[in-house]
């Protein structure tokens, strides 16, 4: 029997008048865009010199028209399902949560999984209908453009996986964000950030992030078949992206982009589904439990390890990073003081910095979700007191997050240590200093930062916590920007000192500091060791001070 919530979506959004209006809109929009690109791409001018008649001729090549129109069609389908559908799922979920309609559903004996599926496929029923009406155009495109069915099936399998991923992201955001108006746009921005901007980091060696979108499959499987007839090879840009997304190095083996996309999106779907499941069970539960957060963080670290393995073991990288390794530094305008052999070191710093920034972002997210605010802690203590327990169980949602934070930092430090050892033991990678300090120092600062975040989360509410994060993480960067505009060279040491206060800018500095031979002729204007000392000491003081104040608050 059809899921009641899907049936509700169909009844609500696909009444005859809705069907006519949305159907007309979809067909008119699709026909206009598709046919315009089809006819435009179909026309080809044969110059007079090549024409048999001696006059310039206009000939029609339908194959080229269909191939050219495919991307437009895909974009429109994406607009219907990914943009309109995502906004719809997020806003309705948040509206119903605020109004109390979710409570009705929560009280029904339906399994939370059925409820999630009902919302995912029921709310965007009209958008699915609009998508359905574009399929005849797709069929025309496939037949006329001679695009291989198997490749199209792969693309659309990934397309639907992405749509479900975006809608689930929107649903989870709708469940979490309290204001319905905000939810729709927060969801769209989150989808853009997570699945459009974050994949850009894939260009910096962390290849798994590139597979959060349909782009790898599109470029890897479809673009080579969209060449105009008679064209021998792809353009320079197309060739690069197609090469980038052909085979993905992961640990010591290679994976196809479609498989990798499914694995990546599947993992994220799993995490989001678990969050939605918890929220459906009881609204007041945090998005992740502590064991779940540790598990997710562990998976992220395995993906990081797998993606960076080829780079740290053999110096191989894909994307822009891999491309830059092959460039001649004398031709790309690098500073004179950098020797030709500095390029691998710079790449290493970029990759290491990206690794730590990604870890910081994950730590911030997980600490925010899993470390209990003062209210939740109080509830835990009251409950354990009434149940006659000496303390709140360590992995409970209400338990203090000291051990949890320690576990996260340990995991990421171990992963970094493995990568470091890999580079040290590699014969080809020479851009890592073989000292224990190179692992110990970043690990220590990561621990201090995480402890400060945890203490802030557990003693302040949202305003205080996010104010602290904004002040500490963003203000130093803004101050540096002002100083740079004022006098870049004169203020360079001051800028470094201030930048070391923010973890986001401290780690790149630390990586430069720990890298061997990057600046053979020391710059007299700057002294990195001073700013590193400032950064380490500040983070230590903050962690200790905030932990003490937290301890005092808890004692009260």
């Amino acid at each position, binding site marked *: *029997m059809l899921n*009641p*919530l899907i*049936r*509700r979506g169909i*009844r*609500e*959004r696909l009444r005859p008048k809705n069907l006519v209006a949305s159907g007309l809109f979809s067909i008119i929009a699709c026909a206009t865009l598709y046919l315009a690109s089809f006819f435009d791409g179909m026309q080809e001018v044969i110059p007079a010199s090549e024409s048999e008649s001696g006059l310039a001729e206009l000939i029609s090549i339908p194959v080229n028209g269909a191939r050219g129109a495919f991307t437009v069609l895909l974009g429109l389908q994406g607009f219907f399902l990914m943009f309109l559908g995502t906004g719809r799922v997020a806003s309705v979920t948040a509206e*119903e949560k605020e*109004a*109390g*309609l979710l*409570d*009705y*559903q*929560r*009280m*029904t*004996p*339906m399994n939370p999984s059925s409820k999630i599926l009902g919302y995912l496929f029921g709310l965007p029923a009209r958008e699915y209908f609009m998508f359905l009406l574009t399929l005849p155009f797709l069929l025309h495109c496939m037949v006329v453009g001679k695009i291989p069915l198997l490749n199209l099936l792969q693309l659309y399998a990934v397309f639907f996986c992405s749509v479900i991923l975006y809608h689930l992201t929107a649903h989870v955001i709708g469940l979490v964000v309290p204001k319905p108006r905000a939810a729709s746009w927060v969801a769209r921005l989150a989808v853009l950030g997570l699945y459009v901007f974050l994949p850009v980091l894939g260009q910096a060696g962390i290849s798994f992030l590139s597979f959060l979108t349909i782009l790898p499959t599109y470029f890897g499987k479809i673009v080579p078949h969209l060449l105009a007839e008679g064209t021998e090879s792809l353009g320079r840009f197309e060739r690069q992206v197609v090469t980038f997304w052909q085979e993905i190095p992961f640990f010591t083996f290679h994976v196809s982009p479609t498989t990798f996309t499914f694995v990546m999106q599947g993992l994220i779907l799993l995490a989001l589904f678990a969050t939605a499941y918890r929220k459906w*069970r*009881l*609204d*007041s539960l945090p998005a992740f439990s502590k064991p779940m957060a540790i598990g997710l963080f562990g998976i992220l670290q395995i993906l990081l390890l797998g993606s960076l393995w080829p780079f740290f073991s053999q110096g191989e990288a894909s994307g822009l990073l891999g491309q830059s390794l092959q460039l001649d530094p004398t031709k790309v305008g690098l500073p004179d003081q950098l020797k030709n052999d500095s390029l691998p070191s710079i790449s290493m710093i970029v990759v290491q910095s990206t690794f730590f920034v990604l870890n910081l972002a994950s730590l911030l997210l997980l600490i925010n979700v899993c470390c209990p605010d*003062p*209210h939740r802690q*109080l*509830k835990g203590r*009251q*409950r354990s007191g*009434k*149940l006659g327990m000496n303390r709140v169980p360590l992995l409970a949602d209400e338990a203090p997050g000291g051990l949890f934070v320690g576990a996260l930092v340990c995991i990421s430090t171990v992963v970094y240590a493995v990568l470091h050892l890999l580079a040290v033991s590699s014969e080809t990678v020479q851009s890592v200093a073989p000292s224990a300090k190179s692992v110990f120092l970043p690990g220590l600062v990561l621990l201090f930062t995480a402890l400060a975040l945890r203490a802030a989360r557990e003693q302040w509410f949202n305003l205080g916590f996010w104010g602290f994060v904004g002040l500490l993480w963003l203000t130093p960067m803004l101050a540096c920007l002002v100083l740079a505009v004022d006098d870049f060279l004169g203020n360079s040491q001051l800028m470094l000192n201030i930048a070391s206060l923010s973890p986001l800018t401290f780690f790149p500095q630390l990586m430069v500091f720990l890298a061997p031979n990057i600046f053979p002729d020391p710059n007299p204007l700057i002294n990195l060791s001073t700013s590193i000392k400032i950064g380490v000491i500040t983070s230590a003081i903050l962690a200790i001070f905030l932990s003490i104040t937290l301890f005092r608050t808890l004692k009260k």
Partner: protein
Amino acid sequence: MHYGDFVALNHLTFSVNPGSIYGLIGPNGAGKTSAIKAIATLLEPTFGDILVDGISALHQPERARGVLGYMPDFPPIYEDLKVWEFCDLFAQAYGLRGEERQAKVLQSLYATGLKEQMHTLCKTLSRGMRQRALLAKTLVHDPSVLLLDEPAANLDPKSRIDLRNVLKKLASDGKTILISSHILSEIEDTCDSLGFMRDGGMALSGTLDEISRQKDRATQLKIHLLEPYPALREVISRIPSLSQFEETGTCKTKFRVSLDGGQKEATQALAKLVETGVPVSEFICQKPRVEELFLELESASKERGKC
């Protein structure tokens, strides 16, 4: 139950007999809605337990939800569904199938007087009609326990009377009903027993008689005579269950006395009066009104607050 360091419900204990209607009353912020939401498994108490039809709402919320019907105080509704579709959605969600589902949907629509509006879109319904639609949705899966938060808040007098009749019918069918309301007369007319909530706890609970006794509030008897009877005071002083004789009119025929006891004592007192030859024309048991008890509790609470 805590919201941060605010205690919303504090050692709240009460029970409702099967097949009865229990009214929760109390000032704003007393914790009525929190209590109902906790029973409905929508809020998690810090500690304690809630048994619904013998099922722990805390440890087996999914099972408990199957026997619960919940109607919140601000009735949200799926605007773009028709009234029957709204009920049908929940009938399906509660696992009803085929003809049984159709029958239950129609039954609940008939019971709430929405037969004629069943094909109307919910967004065109008035507030009172929405309330009815919500009640229909609450009844559709035939729950044994109904939790109604301010069910008559938006209803006109006729609809309130209809609702009262519906609730009484449901209770006589064996359903247990818990109502919270600010409309004290409605509670008085509808409920078999009451709970006065204050500061998250239960100040008083029981039937109106039991509460009156707890509050040392005797039932008042209104006695009217056909003609003056000079020895009435003496006759009444000889009946042990009567006290506090008081004349209420100027024509020496209207009196009020306090009755210590219930119906049985009242019957005995009347028999005694008639036997003595008192020309009784009216004999009315006046129970203390919920409103009076509520105000009395409130003022006592304020006095304690001042102390």
